[in-house]
């Protein structure tokens, strides 16, 4: 019997939502780690019972938790994230240089090939790897050693490495994104990195076409076609057909191209989803109408998906980690809001219903398709 498990990170704990393949009725478990910020949970694609959790607190710092029974129980593992060597400095909000300081783990990405290997994207931006199930962590310091680090700067949410994509056809190749530095690619398992921001244009930058300094909010690909990348930039929806070497804008007819998440249909590599947000000054949907927009053409031509979503007086946000898809025959799409709702669509976005309505602000949503 197939089913889905939705892993939800919130400002005040983690929740696990489960359903069978029909996705009509849901069991809600949680809060796990009540009172802690849960930036991200993600399960290993090799062992669906292995779930990694980023648990953090302004008071008590960072914890990493691991479950080996599908989220029934968790055990704390290693929480020491030490930058390699002298951490150096990056650009601060006022343009001065500021020391690199570890704050939290934004994203955990389990390996596609080894169940005990997991990558962590952290604030201040860096990438770490564990090869022992999260018990110990080492920095992949070639990223910060790229040379452009002193020009990276924090966005309003901090200088976070929030996206990690591993190429299923070539595990040595990974993509990451940093707010506000941009996107980077490694072709040698993280030893060296190349900025891949050509074609991005950020008008608020002194050099709008700079090699780094872009506020990339999210990148996504379809696992069957990892050379084609989609990006939600601060403003603009972008597409690359050559592993990020060159980007072009595909915002098309979107009513606003500001937003945070972007994701790809599980079975249709040209079908992508975004949640347009009014502006970077007003982080809520346009006209109080919560809408997912879908393109079936890989961008440029977009349609609003509104059935079941509030179309008046809705002023929530949808954060960058808070959208995911399942891989059941009829692709399920999920997203969470800062108002605590988690919406699900079992028909690829045509209609939506809330799984839960009153959680703490949702930071992240991941989905496991269980066989």
């Amino acid at each position, binding site marked *: 019997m197939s089913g889905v498990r939705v892993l939800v990170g919130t400002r005040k704990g983690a929740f696990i939502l489960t359903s069978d393949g029909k996705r009509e009725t849901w069991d809600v478990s949680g809060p796990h780690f*009540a*009172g802690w910020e849960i930036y991200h949970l993600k399960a290993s694609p090799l062992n669906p019972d292995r779930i990694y959790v980023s648990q953090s607190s302004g*008071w008590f*710092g960072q*914890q990493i938790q691991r479950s080996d029974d599908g989220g029934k129980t968790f055990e*704390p593992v290693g*929480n020491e994230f030490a930058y390699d060597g002298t951490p150096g400095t990056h650009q601060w909000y006022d343009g001065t240089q500021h020391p690199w300081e570890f704050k939290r783990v934004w994203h955990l990405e389990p390996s596609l090939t080894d169940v005990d290997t997991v990558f962590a994207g952290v604030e201040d931006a860096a990438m770490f790897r564990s090869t022992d199930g999260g018990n110990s962590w080492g920095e992949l310091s070639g990223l910060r050693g790229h040379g452009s680090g002193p020009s990276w700067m924090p966005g309003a949410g901090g200088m976070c490495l929030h996206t990690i994509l591993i190429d299923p056809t070539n595990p040595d190749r990974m993509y990451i994104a940093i707010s506000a530095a941009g996107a980077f690619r490694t072709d040698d398992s993280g030893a060296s990195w190349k900025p891949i921001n050509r074609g991005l244009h950020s008008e608020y930058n002194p050099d709008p076409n700079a090699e780094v300094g872009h506020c990339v909010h999210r990148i996504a690909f379809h696992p069957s076609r990892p050379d084609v990348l989609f990006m939600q930039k601060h403003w603009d929806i972008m597409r690359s057909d050559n592993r990020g070497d060159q980007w072009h804008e595909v915002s098309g007819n979107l009513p606003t191209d500001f937003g945070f998440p972007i994701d790809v249909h599980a079975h249709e590599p040209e079908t992508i989803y975004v949640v347009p947000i009014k502006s970077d000054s007003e982080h809520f949907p346009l006209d109080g109408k919560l809408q997912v927009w879908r393109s079936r053409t890989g961008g440029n031509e977009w349609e609003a998906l509104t059935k079941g979503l509030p179309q008046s007086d809705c002023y929530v946000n949808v954060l960058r980690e808070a959208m995911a898809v399942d891989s059941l025959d009829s692709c399920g799409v999920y997203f969470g809001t800062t108002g605590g709702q988690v919406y699900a669509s079992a028909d690829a976005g045509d209609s939506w219903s809330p799984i839960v309505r009153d959680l703490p602000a949702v930071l992240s949503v991941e989905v496991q398709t269980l066989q």
Partner: protein
Amino acid sequence: MIRVALPFHLRTLAKVDGEVEVSVDGPVSIRSVLDALEAKYPVLRGTIRFHNSSERRPWLRFFACEQDLSHDSPEDPLPEAVASGEEPLLIVGAIAGG
């Protein structure tokens, strides 16, 4: 034995109820008590003081015997009442946020 009162979230993390007790060989100071606490409950490493510097996290304070010891040297001797187990060392989270 030295008594230590942890804030709620650290009690949950360490899976303990109420105060915890640790034994310290030699001088009883903030540092030696925290060393003993972290040895007994490794999950607390990094939660009260930073891994890299061993400095107190800014939103935590240390109190004992109605004194704020947060800005004392971590090597300073703790009050005799703490060393004798008569009074606990209180680790308190700042009241902040919603």
